[in-house]
């Protein structure tokens, strides 16, 4: 189930909220757990058993680690941790990377092994990283072992962040799972964030995504330079508004049910360096990699050369986490390379550069990176990059960017460019602070509420329209 579907918006969500607040406190976690399992099973009826297996395995190993630590059995503690990491990474390898591995083994060793073709369970990358976070936090004594298997199940499967993050770390929500406060103001802030996230998804990401999909559906040989720029610009908008929209909805839903998740996107497209970009983009993933990979690798403690290597390793893994393909590996290394270059000296030069130049540099690197992220193959990505700079072969196929440039796209792109900066929020804050009287402040808040209502109404209409499925001829 996805948040921007009619079944979630009009049935699952209101029903879950009503039941949640109708039940006594001691049953609320059970209700959320049941709802989360239904939410997951709705899209992946069989994959829910894999998630339950992950929950059971991580629960037992967490208990064993805690028991061994209390009993002073260091070898068992380390062995169990290794087993837990192997279990989680092994699941990820089997379900996400087996085709990729077999394909490359076949190419490398000239073998003919059949591809396993195992369906990818949705959200496995997210819930596996959360499970890893749990056992590692227990091992590091940064979180208390969870003795209640239902509470651990709730942490791993909680539906707001289950399929698209943010990756919630166990130590951040441990206390909230055991006991949390909810009040209507927090819930309303959650509602507002959910509405903004939904609008980002359906009003910007979907519109930009449709144009990107249409152009990427055309063989790259038929692309013009204008089409390439339009496709990459559309995808740049789509991926940010889609991902950050989902994160906003997840954080908003969390607040509605009393959880406080950390911010996941902080206007990454206004960054002045790639380093800053990664402090603003998918923050929960980058901090996960920092805490559970970069720091254990030695971080910056062993000299510059080792630091650069560690960064490249982290970003190679980060790329691979996003997808089992060489395009994702190159995307990760592309970002890793610029991070290393910035540490080697470009960063210092950048700081002295004119602010728009720094911004152009970041957007050029990020957009070129999205080409690798979106392209099906590396040669296709290379061809797109060549077309972007005018070095692609002119196909004379008749395709042109005009075919895809609609008034809706132009409006969406303009709105997207403004909405991906902190300017709207800053203006709203300034207006509130500058309001000379309580009455004007009230009017401004009323206008903001009306704005949210308009966003919700239009988003709901757009979601409803996604269920509209006319056939030109039913019989064909």
């Amino acid at each position, binding site marked *: 189930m996805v948040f921007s579907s009619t079944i979630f918006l*009009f049935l699952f969500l209101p029903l879950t909220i009503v039941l949640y607040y109708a039940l006594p406190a001691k049953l609320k976690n059970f209700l959320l757990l049941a709802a989360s399992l239904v939410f997951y*099973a709705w899209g992946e*009826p069989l994959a829910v058993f894999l998630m339950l297996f992950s929950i059971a395995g991580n629960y037992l190993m967490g208990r064993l680690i805690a028991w061994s630590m209390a009993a002073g059995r260091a070898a068992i503690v380390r062995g169990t941790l290794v087993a837990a990491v192997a279990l989680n990474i092994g699941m990820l390898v089997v379900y996400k990377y087996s085709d990729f591995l077999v394909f490359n083994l076949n190419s490398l060793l000239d073998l003919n092994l059949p591809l396993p073709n195992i369906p990818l369970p949705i959200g496995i990358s997210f819930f596996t990283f959360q499970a890893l976070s749990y056992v590692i936090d227990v091992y590091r004594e940064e979180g208390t072992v969870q003795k209640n298997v239902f509470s651990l199940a709730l942490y791993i499967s909680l539906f707001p962040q289950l399929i698209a993050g943010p990756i919630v770390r166990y130590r951040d929500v441990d206390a909230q799972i055991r006991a949390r406060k909810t009040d209507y103001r927090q819930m309303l802030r959650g509602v507002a964030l959910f509405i903004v996230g939904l609008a980002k998804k359906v009003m910007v990401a979907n519109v930009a995504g449709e144009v990107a999909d249409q152009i990427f*559906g055309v063989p790259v040989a038929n692309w013009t330079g204008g089409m390439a720029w339009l496709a990459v610009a559309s995808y740049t908008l789509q991926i940010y508004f889609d991902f950050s929209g989902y994160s906003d909805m997840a954080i908003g839903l969390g607040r509605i049910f009393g959880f406080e998740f950390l911010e996941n996107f902080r206007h990454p497209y206004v960054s002045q360096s790639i380093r800053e970009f990664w402090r603003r983009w998918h923050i929960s993933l980058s901090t996960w990699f920092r805490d559970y990979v970069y720091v254990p690798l030695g971080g910056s403690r062993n000299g510059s050369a080792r630091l650069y290597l560690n960064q490249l390793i982290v970003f190679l893994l980060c790329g691979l986490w996003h997808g089992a393909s060489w395009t994702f590996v190159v995307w990760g290394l592309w970002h890793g390379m610029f991070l290393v270059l910035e540490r080697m000296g470009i960063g210092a030069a950048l700081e002295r550069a004119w602010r728009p130049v720094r911004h152009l540099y970041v957007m050029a690197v990020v957009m070129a990176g999205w080409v690798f992220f979106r392209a099906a193959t590396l040669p296709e990505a290379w061809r797109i990059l060549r077309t972007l700079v005018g070095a692609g072969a002119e196909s004379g196929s008749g395709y042109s960017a005009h075919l895809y440039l609609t008034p*809706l796209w132009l409006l969406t792109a303009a709105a997207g460019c403004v909405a991906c900066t902190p300017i709207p929020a800053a203006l709203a804050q300034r207006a509130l602070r500058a309001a000379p009287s309580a009455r004007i402040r009230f009017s401004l808040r009323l206008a903001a509420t009306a704005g949210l209502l308009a966003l919700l109404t239009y988003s709901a209409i757009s979601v409803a329209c996604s*269920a509209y499925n006319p056939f*030109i001829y039913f019989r064909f």
Partner: protein
Amino acid sequence: MNEPRSFSLRARLLFWAFVAALATPTALMLAGQGGFSPETENRPPAPLPTLNGQPLREFPRAFEAFFNDAFGLRAAMIKINAKIHSRLLRGTITPDVVAGREGWLFYKGEHIRGTPQSNLQIFLGTYPLDSDFLEKARRVQSRLRHYFEARGIRYYLVLVPSKISVYPEYMRGGKPPAEMSAIDVVARHLQDHGEPHVVNLRPGLLRCKEQAQIYHKTDTHWSDEGMLCGCRLLAERIGLETRWETVARQAGLHHGDLAKMEGKSAADGSEPTTEVRRVPETARLIPEDSLGGRLAQSIWLKDATWKIFETPDSSAPRLLCLGDSFFMRGNFTRLFAEAFSYSVFLWNDHLAPEYLDWIQPDVVIWEVTERRLRILADPLNPGIPFDPE
């Protein structure tokens, strides 16, 4: 765990108003106020699934399909969205439909995963017409021609252009009609390689376009004026005596299939058109529920969609016509049937040989629309059993 505390009545009211607003479509559905319109969606609604008789893992998808068709306010929300898109944004709500200039709508063509849609390919001049396809199409036509010739039947392949290759100037990023569209390439290849029975209507329709609007603005298909032009072009090519010299025209309204796809009802989505009838009109439609109709249905036509006409002129030829919506929708069959003593129109690309025994046609026509040219290379179309070469 603490219960939520009421910090303010306003916050409480707003929160529950949000929940109530989200729940309203479901509540209305439960109250029997669903919002599905078979008229605009051209399909039946998905049924409410049961847990009996289907695997449990398929239930969520089936229930979601049902819910997507049944939730309340659905029709109203779709209508509002359609108005916003067509009036404010000059766009469409259906990805398969393109909003062109001056209110013209174009159908992009059926979805085949991984390939651009066929009408779009026709517009862009990228419809795949390699030599392998052209040769396969020629072989199929050659076999058909020989098959019908051996039975003393005149056979014609009639190619009807897509709206997008007749009116490309109204498409977004529009341009004048191409000298050679996909249909012209195929027709010329077949004619140049010994298949004279191919009738390409595009050049003639482009001439008629100068006199009248021959395709509807909000429909995939030709208008009555286009149909009349098509009848005359066919009559000339096939050598029919009837030439539709005298016709009656009257103003009417047309609720186009693309307007329907855009969620527009007949009241707000119809376009003015000119209805055309031959004078005198002699062709009589045999009703499906008549004895003849029921016999034809049960013995010969089975599941096919069909129309049968008779005229008093028993000296006129008998026709069997296979085709798609260009012939079967609107008034084309009624107009064209005037030239024949007995005519059977089938919405089908597959011909059972026993039809020939029953209908005893003098003329067989297989009509194919430009966006469906690919089927010409399929040796199973029509379903005549061929001797292996």
